[in-house]
């Protein structure tokens, strides 16, 4: 990868500082286009919260919260020289969650009025009451301190203030650069932005306003060989970030698009991989996804308790393994962090008023802790919530979601070249590709975007049709080399799915370049 890209990812997070703002009506609200936000701005959220919480209390709940949220999205997509779509959407509404006789109830509506808040609060209690008749195990929450605060994510340039025309021209220029290489047949590019304006109030006395911006640019270049019917694609290595429009301006998108065009064409002629065992050197643009699937998900406590058994699955990490299981080699440390600047799951407070925190999940290779929420905390060793509750909409019930989970770099200045130098027969992989992992997070298989042969300590020719398959603890225990801070980058998923009904979560994973020994590699080209 180019130095410019590396430098960007390394420093971008640091530049995006977190701004703490005073309580009262957040000043940024007034900056939002007035016509677009008229309804939301006219709503007295505190007064509505009073109605919901007092109604719920009268009906006998032990806990209640109301979230009054407004979501704005913008999406622009193009292919080659044309614009496919430009759209904006907004969604405003509220949801009331109540705990009644140890049973959750939730109801929500788009009609944000005092009468509707009363009706919906009663409906939430009615749902909880109907189910509580048959409830077998009462749900218990750990307490959380009262919080009155406002918080704004660390973006520099609000993408909703940037002219659409500039964004369109940017993408068309990017397409032009990708198409520069002879043999490139197609390019699709897009950028999407999300703005969440969240208000939370609870029977704990908390009142929290948050304003969050996230960016999700992407492109994909395809080269088709018309003679033999073969085709190959190369997607962007730059992923979504918890940043504003500055991400579009500072990241080297155009050079990357040009390089992607060259690599898509080169992939058509690349050498097919010979299946077998290889040492792998994995670039952060690839490794973030392996971390997400094999470390992020199994350390979710709700999975270990079988609360996700019917959908996402359980976890091979059972509660008796805490402090005992050598999850990874000793050099490996994974930190969960909802305070990391520039990361997608960074928040001021979660959706039940618990502040964002930073803690070890894996320390010196040992599995040491879980991701927790207030209704899971009593089943964890620390008996505390780390602030992992999240709902993807005003109309969704909040439940445990993944914080940013990142692999820590080594203390020295180990570089990718240093790691490659220690490999006789291996593969260097960039970018995330096909991915699949079992429901307990043991067995996984990952592809990538580009693959390079490593022979006798040097990177050589391009390879194709590569995927590696391994078992989580075997893989992480085979890690024997980590890059230093200079190689650290943040990747992430904009739409991580979990739960029933399915919800989406945006989450980042930082990591340095890393080396793994003797991993099983397949050739994915079906004959």
């Amino acid at each position, binding site marked *: 990868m180019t130095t410019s890209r590396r430098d960007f990812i390394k420093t971008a997070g640091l530049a995006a500082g977190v701004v703490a703002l005073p309580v009262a009506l957040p000043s940024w609200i007034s900056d939002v286009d007035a*016509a*677009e936000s*008229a*309804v939301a701005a006219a709503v007295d959220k505190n007064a509505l919260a009073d109605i919901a919480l007092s109604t719920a209390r009268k009906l006998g709940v032990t806990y209640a919260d109301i979230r009054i949220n407004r979501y704005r999205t913008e999406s622009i997509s193009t292919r080659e020289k044309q*614009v*496919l*779509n*430009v*759209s*904006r*959407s*907004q*969604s*405003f*509404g509220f949801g009331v*969650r109540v705990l009644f006789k140890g049973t*959750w109830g*939730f*109801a*929500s*509506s*788009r009609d944000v009025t005092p009468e509707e808040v009363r009706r919906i609060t009663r409906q939430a209690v*009615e*749902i*909880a009451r*109907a*189910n509580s008749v*048959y409830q*077998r195990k009462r749900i218990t929450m750990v307490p959380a301190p009262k919080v009155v605060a406002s918080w704004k994510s660390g973006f520099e340039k609000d993408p909703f203030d940037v002219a659409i025309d500039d964004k369109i021209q940017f993408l*068309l220029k990017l397409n032009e650069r990708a198409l520069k290489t002879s043999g490139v*047949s197609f390019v699709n590019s897009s950028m999407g932005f999300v703005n969440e304006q969240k208000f939370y109030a609870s029977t704990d006395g908390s009142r929290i306003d948050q304003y969050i911006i996230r960016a999700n640019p992407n492109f994909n270049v395809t080269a088709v060989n*018309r003679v033999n*019917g073969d085709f190959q694609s190369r997607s962007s290595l730059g992923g979504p970030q918890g940043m504003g429009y500055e991400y579009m301006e500072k990241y080297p998108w155009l050079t990357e698009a040009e390089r992607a065009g060259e690599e898509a064409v080169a992939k058509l002629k690349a050498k097919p991989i010979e299946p077998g065992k290889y040492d792998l050197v994995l670039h952060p643009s690839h490794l973030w996804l392996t971390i997400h699937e094999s470390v992020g998900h199994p350390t979710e406590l709700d999975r270990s308790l*079988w*609360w*996700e*058994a*019917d*959908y996402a*699955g*359980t976890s*091979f990490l059972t509660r008796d393994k805490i402090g005992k299981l050598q999850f990874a080699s000793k050099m490996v440390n994974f930190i969960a962090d909802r305070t990391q600047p520039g990361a997608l799951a960074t928040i001021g407070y979660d959706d039940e008023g618990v502040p964002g925190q930073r803690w070890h999940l894996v320390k010196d290779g040992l599995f040491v802790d879980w991701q927790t929420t207030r209704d899971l905390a009593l089943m964890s060793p620390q008996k505390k919530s780390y602030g992992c509750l999240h709902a993807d909409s005003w*109309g*969704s019930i909040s439940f445990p979601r993944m914080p940013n989970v990142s692999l820590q770099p080594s203390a020295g200045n180990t570089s990718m070249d240093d790691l490659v130098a220690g490999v006789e027969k291996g593969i260097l992989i960039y970018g995330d590709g*096909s991915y*699949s992992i*079992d*429901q*307990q*997070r043991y*067995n996984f298989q990952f592809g990538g975007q580009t693959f390079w042969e490593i022979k006798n300590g040097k990177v050589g020719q391009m390879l194709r049709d590569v*995927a590696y*398959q391994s*078992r989580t603890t075997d893989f992480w225990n085979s890690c024997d080399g980590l890059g230093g801070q200079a190689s650290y980058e943040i990747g992430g998923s904009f739409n991580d799915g979990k739960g*029933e*009904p*399915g919800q989406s979560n945006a989450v980042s994973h930082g990591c340095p370049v890393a080396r793994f020994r003797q991993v099983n590699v397949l050739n*994915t*080209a*079906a004959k």
Partner: protein
Amino acid sequence: MLLSEAEARALTQKVLGYVKADDATVSVGSENYSHLRFAANAFTTSGARENTTVGVTVWIDKKRGSSSTNEIDDDSLRAMVAQAQDLARISPVDREYMETLGPQVYNPVNGYAEATANISLHDRARAINDVIANCEKAGVIGAGFHQARGSASASATKNGNFAYERSSLVSLSTTARTPDGDSSGYFLRNHFDVAKLDVKRVSREAIRKALESRKPRTLEPGVYPAILEPQAVADLLGFFAFSFDARNADEGRSPFSLAGGKTKVGQQIFDERINIYSDPWNPELPGSQSAQSGIPAQRVQLVRNGVLKNLTYSRFWAKQKDKQPTPGPVNNIMESSMSPVSLEDMIRATDRGILLGRFWYIRGVDPRSALQTGLTRDGIWYVEKGKIQYPVKNFRFNQSLMQLLAPGNVDMIGVPERVGSAEGQGGSASLLPALKVKEFHFTSQSEAV
């Protein structure tokens, strides 16, 4: 409350009244949604949502802009239209612009049941309590998800078309696990009519699969004959009818592409008994009355007797290629042109093979052959000499869908059943049969249960 036809018409006309652009299409959707989830033999979350969303796409000098909102007071709707028009003015010309449709005649489908859209909280709580009680009685730990949705959707164009329809869906999935975590079973079914959702069957099958897959043995990965229950077929092929895009094939980036810019239309690509089509009026699987851009939906045959008959053309691509735009697909149906074979007969006819009920975490690996990877989950058995012999541990597979259905690989085809993709949580459905195939590629072992 779902929007009535009169309310939806008034709302779309109001929005169109604000439009100053050359052309426009307005869409309205309202929904009542509720769920009850359980795990570890107790209720976990339960909730409800009511929402109405209005969206508009406009074209000014063939330049396009879209906007949507769920704030449906007059000022917000005006602001939404103004925003779409602003976006259109600054956008480049939409080279794929097609004039919106004038008045169309729709043949209605019957996919709505009032009792589903307004499900009784108490009946649901009792029904799921019974599922949990069955789990407790069988000594297994149950988890599952019941959801019910009523939807009303409408669309209208500046050129005078208006369409309105209601639909409903209820689904229940259940996972049963033995307390030691040694085995697991799963079953999912859905319907548009809550009276036709067989709750007892869902819990019975999930529990049976868990109990019958205890103490699984290790079997070497490799290529095995396999019997895929309808759920497993839905997990692999639940959206298959929607992947026959002509443009991708013409552009050389589809498993239906041929060298030299040609396509496989007219070729025998699948076993000669296989038929794949979409039929909006199938009584068990009603689709939408509207296909793309509001074209009245029609039956669309994609594969007949294994021959690729049609690819699907968008209105734009049809114009480029001098074809008719495809009035579908609006659902996904696969059936045999011969007499279907029961699952029991498939097992009886198996000398040596694998029986499996479900796949999980399926992702594309190579689009050229529609190669998919994923895992088996929640019950897999070794079959020999016409009998289920013993449960086996899960596998990862790498399997091309083109190879799966290819001539020579399909052995037997079952009775199509209404079944939804498990990864899709039963939120949609297909009519798909069990399949017995000669070769299925299991590539590694998975310890996961």
